């Protein structure tokens, strides 16, 4: 191929083949199997499985909590990344390392710790529960734990962007008469936007798929605090002839919806990157 010869690095065919095989074995085939299993249901059976009141409540909670948590993660993560990049303070390196901890911690551990902290007799719960803030076995609990798990994604995607930010552009803005807020809003934030959206997408995707911690903190009450992943597991455990297929049907809905939302976020990100 004449075009391939002009590339600096060799191995176009090898690497593209490897990528396709990898994607197939690890992503497309398992997900395809899920869809195919679900497709063994008739349309009416499928509809009945995925569109019950309980299922709809679970979707709403899953997407709502993941979106809200990702939005909070974006704000918190931006703040943390800003402080870690812009300021020098004692213990900075320790704080920086701490950000990665939620990545490494088994999420079940996070779930256990959170639920114990916020229950009525927990360290924080003893102050918060009397105020009406239920940080455990509630929807709030789900959002809290998803922020814990999601914000490191935002911090880690924004840090390199913040470090590479053109300091002179900020000075230019100030010299042109912009206030600090105007400089942040009109010069810094647009430059951070692609990174912020990437971090948001990662935190959101992670929140959609999170199971281990949510199971411990939410209480898993149908219609109230039950997430879609938990619904899938409970369907599986029912042991009826069609349970497995119904579970994959719900999973398929989750899959398609997630995919569509991630495409939208990617579009937004590409748009904010122009220029």
């Amino acid at each position, binding site marked *: 191929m004449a075009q391939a010869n002009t590339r600096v690095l060799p191995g176009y065919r090898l690497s593209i083949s490897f990528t396709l095989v990898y994607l197939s074995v690890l992503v497309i085939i398992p997900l395809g199997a899920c869809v195919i299993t679900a497709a063994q249901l008739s349309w009416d059976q499928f509809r009945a499985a995925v569109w019950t009141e309980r299922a709809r409540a679970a979707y709403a909670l899953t997407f709502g909590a993941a979106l809200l948590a990702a939005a909070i993660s974006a704000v918190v993560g931006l703040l943390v990344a800003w402080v870690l990049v812009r300021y020098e303070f004692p213990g900075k390196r320790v704080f920086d390392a701490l950000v990665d901890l939620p990545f490494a911690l088994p999420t079940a551990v996070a779930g256990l710790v959170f639920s114990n902290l916020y229950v009525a007799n927990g360290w924080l719960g003893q102050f918060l529960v009397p105020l009406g803030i239920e940080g455990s076995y509630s929807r709030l609990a789900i959002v809290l734990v998803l922020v814990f798990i999601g914000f490191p994604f935002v911090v880690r995607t924004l840090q390199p962007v913040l470090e590479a930010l053109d300091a002179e552009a900020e000075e230019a803005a100030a010299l042109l008469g*912009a206030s600090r807020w105007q400089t942040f809003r009109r010069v810094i934030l*647009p430059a951070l936007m692609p990174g912020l959206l990437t971090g948001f997408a990662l935190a959101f995707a992670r929140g959609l798929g999170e199971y281990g911690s949510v199971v411990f903190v939410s209480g898993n009450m149908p219609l109230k605090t039950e997430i879609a992943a938990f619904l899938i597991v409970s369907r599986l455990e029912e042991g009826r002839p069609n349970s497995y297929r119904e579970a994959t049907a719900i999973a398929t809905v989750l899959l398609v919806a997630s995919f569509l939302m991630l495409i939208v976020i990617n579009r937004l990100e590409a748009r904010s990157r122009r*220029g």
Partner: protein
Amino acid sequence: MSITAQNVTKRFGDFVALDDVTVECPAGELVALLGPSGGGKTTLLRVIAGLEVPDSGTVLFKDDDITKHSARDRNVGFVFQHYALFRHMTVFENVAFGLRVRKWAEPRVRDRVLELLRLVRLEEKAGLYPANLSGGQKQRIALVRALAPEPKVMLLDEPFGALDAKVRSELRDWLRRLHNELHVTSIFVTHDQEEAFEVADRVVVLNKGRVEQTGAPVEVFERPANGFVMDFLGNVNKLPVRVEGGRALLGETGTVELPGRVFGASENGRTDAYVRPHELDLARTADGGNCLLARVLHVNPAGSVVKVRLWAEDFGLMINVDITPERYRALALKPTEPVYITPKAEAVSDTDYAI
């Protein structure tokens, strides 16, 4: 509006960037801060702009002490070496930025931006992003962006430093013409002495955080205050001499009397003389007596003078001599040929030994 920096000192840790510097820029003039990198010129510009806070000293705009004012309140136009354009904004929005933050009405913003884009002949680029412009176009946009809010003074930090030679000289001419039209008091930083001399009304030579000399280009060129300035202006032969009875004689024992300038001398009279290449001449024979033997190394005939580089074996010196093309043809010089370097008679009599 005139700009004055009075007794400004600025340290970064142990490094003294500015050491009691006083610089005045009269209203409407274009002043060049000239010097080697690390000399403090950019720091001085940033202090005037309000981007650095001086450790001591004051900055005055006209008679107002603005040392404590923030960069935002100084109403200066600033141009960075690397443009510092807002990458996510179109050319139009870049130029409009200073007007929008001042809450100008939309039609007025439009008129002003389009007027400025016409001024730099880039109206058709209004909708593009900076990434799609060439370096020279970016810098023109940066210039009009700075001009848009009608600043009282313009500060330019090596504005043409990142551009190639041809674009640089075009923009240089353009800047001079623009200044002649607008008469905004301007200071620009450069390490290129040619650029400073070509564009500026006044030149301030800065080195190691101190002012070496201030003056009109012709003054600085014809009467350099000291060896540093002479050396920095370049295109000069720095030759070791000893001073005896008011005459500068080449080397330890040589008897060739040199024209040019001598700045100070140690006790035994040893120092350096600065001789410009055009103050020397070449001859085939040693009939004048006051000459030294050298070998032709290289001839550069491209230009209004022919630049000849020679090697004086006896003294271990590299010497540059400029001669007219006519003289070059008459001598018919070839590389490695021996030839005599002689001081021009009128140059010797002009010599001012500032000892």
